[in-house]
């Protein structure tokens, strides 16, 4: 499917992002950018502040940020519900699908910011094309899908808004290795279609294969950065993960 629009390849720039929950500092002065058409990964062990980073970019949690831009748009003043209108799709952690609604309704709600017209129908067909299983299950309640199918649905829903940048929060969570492979195939396909990705993951292998470069975060701060190829063989990544 085509995801690049006339505005071309916009870069997401994040500078000095900090998130506090109550008294705890979940993310501390984080800076990174996602160049248009690129895929960037943020990896780290549980509780390292990855989810908070994504939510903060989306504006779903209170944050302070030095600069937050997507192309020419200053996202730091954009409310969470208008992010999607600037071309940013969000796939929440833990498959937050609308459990009591049918699959197709979930997908259509993904296009809430657009008119529900022929073009939307076209996108819907494209999503079913990408995830055939969703097409088979279109009338089923989302809550009745398996974990892997719900993850597909969450991604499909985000694609329905025809985003230029997709924020993904741990799409591999709780999935079997086989399903993780499927997710990887989807992410690679989306990349070839020109979609920018910001992938937050615990699963390092998936991330290294899906992205071109990565940040390794620990305790809300960047511990390492590098290209995915370099990091893949760096023993320090393992140390950070396994706490050796």
């Amino acid at each position, binding site marked *: 499917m085509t995801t690049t629009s006339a505005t071309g390849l916009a870069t997401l720039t994040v500078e000095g992002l900090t998130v506090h929950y109550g008294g705890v500092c979940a993310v501390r002065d984080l800076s990174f950018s996602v160049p248009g058409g690129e895929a960037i990964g943020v990896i780290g062990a549980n509780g390292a502040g990855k989810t908070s980073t994504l939510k903060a970019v989306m504006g779903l949690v209170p944050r302070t940020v030095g600069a937050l831009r997507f192309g020419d748009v200053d996202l730091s003043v954009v409310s969470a519900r208008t992010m999607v209108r600037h071309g940013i799709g969000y796939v929440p952690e833990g498959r937050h699908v609308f459990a009591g609604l049918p699959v197709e309704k979930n997908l259509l709600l993904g296009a809430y910011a657009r008119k529900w017209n022929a073009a939307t129908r076209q996108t819907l067909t494209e999503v079913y094309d990408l995830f055939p299983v969703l097409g088979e299950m279109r009338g089923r309640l989302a809550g009745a899908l398996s974990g892997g199918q719900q993850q597909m649905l969450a991604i499909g829903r985000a694609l329905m808004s025809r985003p230029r940048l997709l924020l993904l929060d741990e799409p591999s969570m709780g999935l079997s290795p086989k399903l993780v492979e499927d997710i990887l195939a989807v992410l690679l396909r989306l990349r070839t279609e020109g979609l920018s990705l910001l992938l937050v993951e615990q699963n390092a292998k998936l991330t290294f294969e899906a992205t071109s470069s990565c940040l390794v975060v620990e305790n809300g701060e960047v511990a390492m950065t590098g290209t995915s190829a370099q990091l893949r063989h760096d*023993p320090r990544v393992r140390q950070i993960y396994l706490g050796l």
Partner: protein
Amino acid sequence: MKQRIAVAGLIGLALWFLPYGLDSYAIHVVNVILIFAILAIGLGLVMGVAGQVNLAQVAFFGVGAYATAILTTHQGLGFWVSAVLAVLATVVVGVVVGTPALRVQSHYLGIVTLGLALAFTNWVTNAEIAGGAEGISAIPAPTLPGIDLSSEYLYYYLELAVFAVVLTFGLFVVRTGLGRRMRAMRDDALAAGALGAEVPVLRMTAFMLASVYGGVAGVLYAGLIRYVAPESFNIANMFLLLGMVIIGGRQSLIGCVIGAVSLALVREALVDHPTIAQVAYGSVVVLVVVFAPTGLAGLPTRIRALLARRRGHQGTAAQLQPFQPYETSPADDTRRTTAILEVEHVSKQFRGLKALDDVSLTVADREIRGIVGPNGSGKTTLFNVISGLYRPTAGRVRFLGRDMTGQAPYRLARAGMSRTFQNLRLFGDLTVEENLLVALDRSRTRQSWRYVLRPISVLRRDRDLHRQAREVLTRYGLTEFAGLAPKALPYGIQRRVEIARAVAAAPTLLLLDEPAAGLNGEEVRQLSEIVRSIRDSGLTVIIIEHNMGLVMSLCEQITVLASGRIIAEGRPDEVARDAAVIEAYLGDSMTADDLPTVPEVTR
């Protein structure tokens, strides 16, 4: 303290001389206000202190009044005998109205109690014994030798005495163990249960207390007006009473009294325009709820906090002191091998999702066991099954050799299990010291009769608990935070308070759910020291943690969960080299060969 006694004395004096300046109508108004104040204290206890939405307080009031009326007029009993029986009858009704609280809470409880209150009005309007819509008149005036209680001036002193007694008793309850436990339950029933508070008994006690206050108020009302009719106990009056408690400040008994007095006065001032008064107090209730949920009584604190912020005060200068390790209790080798906890083939299913799948593990005495695993692997579910929050779909949990599967959390807590929570569940409206006191207090709620019969022993016990709390505060270096609200503290200190609270409950087995989450490096080091010392004092510890460095260095045995199943178990160095573990965490199944050699784990 001296200041407070002086203020109370002055108010007492003023109340004593009050009737001298009032005409006969005014004293009547004052008498009615005192009755409402007693009712409001009762509602404050059940709703503000214990957090039980009770919209049947006015029915308690009615039962007290009607029982007095019926017993004196129909049965010809003396006023005081009737009064005692009436209060007893109200307590029985209180138990009935409170029973739904064992099953439902919040708005459900609100509607059920409201329904029961309506049922009461419906009954008195129809029952012949209650005189129907006309009610019962000609209730005899109470008699006291030498005092003519048909004079409203003298009746005032009777009411004043009763008011003083019930207010003092209310304050006594709120400021000692029972009240603390109720407030803890109001803030977080789950955490209170996990600390051994018998939530069902506590809820019933709250309703019984409220009914006693309602009954006493009802008796006084019957003696004062000497006529009862259904409309005195209708829903409009219930809401008026609610307005008093909310506007005054439901969490403070003094606030309830202030609310009752001020609202009653306003209503009296607008007696010719009752609807305007109603619009006014209804609006105030809405405004209070949105802008000042603690009511009038809470205003001074809020204003002080606001002023402090204006002046740029950055909280307090309180300092965290170092932890003082416990004395090592000598290991008893005969117990060393006994299993403290046995989890046998436990599964837990949530609507199609298998959160735990045939999990078995055994934890030995004085072990520090780590449970790790990727997000969503079922670690917290396992804790919830162990501590009784969830009933497993299959399998058994044996604690200290006894089958405790599916027991209520408070029973497990009383049997010697204590836990912390992933997202911190401190009692927000209690101070740090009170949080500890709730855990230290191991008395039974059903022994609350002591409050009436042996108040001195209650006070002595409470003083003893305070001494123990100070010891715990010193040990955990928290002394300077004793009087502060937990929410105002930095996260790391809150975590330490929660651990101190869990240990204060004197458990055999301590469950820690992600104790290092949100801590910085130094705090993690201190945590490690604290946990080891706790173990050395004779406890067994199970710890869920993401911080692998902490788990690797602290635990003797590690259990690794993935997708609800145990995929590895063993010593830290074994587990870290396990291919299944590496795959679960990193997502690849590369052999452990290209792992760096594991440094010797420091113990």
